[in-house]
């Protein structure tokens, strides 16, 4: 085909791309990128596991929070901790860094469907979350006092995986709202205190009462309470309220994120 022909025949098949292949490759390389980055993979996967081994399995051996064994209780809350970390750092911080690099701009200029970028990041976050939960389950079942029926195990995994939605929405918000250098700091400043106040490291009832009042405003509190409900070890809040809080929180985050994505357009000039 000569160039002149190539120019005149703008037939539809010229624009037909292999969309499933784009999504598959985008996700695969997103995963590869993350797996090769020890500064992400180690804290995201190993910190929850380390904390759990130390505070849950080792110090918690033979102890209980109320009627629930410490290792069993903390499996639910460190699971939540792990899922939140994967979302904030895997999705949020990586998104901010790529915006800073200009990798995002280059992709926006390319024919890549915008959704492919976000689907890939979401899938990787889902996978990372599943791995964190898997590691904790193995530790808890092998070395802790965790003795769950397959039904409880499946239910717990399912509830913890639900956290992918609100916290990735929050991750995108950080990724699009924060600068590439401040994003890791912002994520940590939110992540660690929120985890503490929400009762992810120790039962919420053990915290001073003013912190318990703060906890009710935190998404991580409502999320972990849902997980603890599986064990009947929650603080007694209503499932509907927890779900409603997380739903509204997700919608707000997504709405702001979309506005930020559009604002990004007009930001750079030269």
């Amino acid at each position, binding site marked *: 085909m000569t*160039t*002149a022909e*190539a*120019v*005149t025949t*703008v037939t539809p*098949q*010229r*624009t*037909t*791309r*292999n969309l499933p*292949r*784009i999504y598959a*490759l*985008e996700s695969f*390389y997103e995963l*590869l*990128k993350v797996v*090769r*980055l020890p500064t992400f993979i180690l804290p995201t996967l190993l910190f929850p596991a380390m904390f759990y081994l130390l505070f849950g399995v080792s110090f918690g051996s033979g102890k209980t929070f109320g009627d629930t064994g410490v290792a069993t209780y903390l499996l639910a809350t460190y699971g939540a901790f792990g899922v939140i970390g994967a979302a904030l750092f895997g999705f949020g911080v990586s998104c901010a860094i*790529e915006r*800073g*690099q*200009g*990798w995002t*701009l*280059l992709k*926006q*200029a*390319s*024919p*890549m*469907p915008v959704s492919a970028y976000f689907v890939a990041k979401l899938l990787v976050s889902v996978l990372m979350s599943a791995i964190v939960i898997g590691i904790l389950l193995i530790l808890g079942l092998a070395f802790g006092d965790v003795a769950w029926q397959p039904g409880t195990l499946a239910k717990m995994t399912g509830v913890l995986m639900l956290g992918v939605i609100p916290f990735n929405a929050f991750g995108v918000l950080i990724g699009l709202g924060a600068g590439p250098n401040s994003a890791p700091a912002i994520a940590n400043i939110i992540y660690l205190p929120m985890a503490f106040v929400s009762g992810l490291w120790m039962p919420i009832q053990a915290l001073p009462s003013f912190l318990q009042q703060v906890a009710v405003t935190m998404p991580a509190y409502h999320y972990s309470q849902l997980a603890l409900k599986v064990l009947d070890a929650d603080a007694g809040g209503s499932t509907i309220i927890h779900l409603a809080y997380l739903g509204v929180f997700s919608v707000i985050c997504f709405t702001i994120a979309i506005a930020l994505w559009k604002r990004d*357009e*007009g930001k*750079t*000039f*030269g």
Partner: protein
Amino acid sequence: MRKINPARLPATTLHNITKTYGRGKSATHALNSINLDIRQGEVTSILGPNGAGKTTAIKLMLGLLQPTSGEVSLFGSKPHDPVARVRTGAMMQIAGLPDTLRVEELVRLFSSYYPAPLALDRILDIAGLWEVRSRVFGKLSGGQKQRVMFALAVCGDPDLLFLDEPTVGLDIETRRSFWAQIRRFIARGKTIILTTHYLEEADALSDRIVLIDKGEVKADGTPHEIKATTSTRCVSCITSIAAQTALEHPAVQDARVNRARLEIATSEAEAVVRHLLDLDPNLRDLEIVGAGIDEAFLQLTHDEAPNHSDLVS
């Protein structure tokens, strides 16, 4: 199907475009009702000083920015339309790509976005990346990184290629080898839009130069036509005449001594030479050089006459 001479259809058009950043008092006019047709099969350089609006123009054409007013078209469609976008490739001024992905992985990923990409080996060949194909991006040199960005721009075999400051920060040798790559792509009959700080680059590569300053098109023509817009010439010789003395002649715009040679900028070379020979009959090694692209550029972007010391810098 209606037969249209493809050469007549512009690849992309800016029609009466104004782009303003910010609002109210802090508003900046990046582009001020400019009109621009980029013809197919041509290499067009967009030149201009920093902040002239070059990158804004490119971002509008790529659909990365929305104009404040006016209309942008890309192959007859809206610029963000995938139908148009799969026919373009772009090299932008960006800091980097993910450090942990290998060269061939980055190329394979970007190739997947296009319906009819070039073969991987072919792309690595065009961009000169064979030796480093399995190296991760973070371990590449500055020149190699630029070549990866070039590879991502050309991998989809686009009809229109945007190169925004493609050789900024590269040394002379790397820059020249980069030009060879760009020429190989030009030889395929493609349309190229290039912005550059290096006037020599625009002169060496382009069919057409569009000069933008303060958001307006100041000049538009072939490199030869642009150069012809300035009448300034440089007269130089070895002489005992002091620069101060030479400056007394009204036609001398600037004079200075550089490595034992007296250098004079003037638009009346003949009169100045006659005057110099009168003052110093022993004058030797006389040279009169026509204005280059640099002189034309300076004259077109400055309201006052160009200062000679700028010209030889």
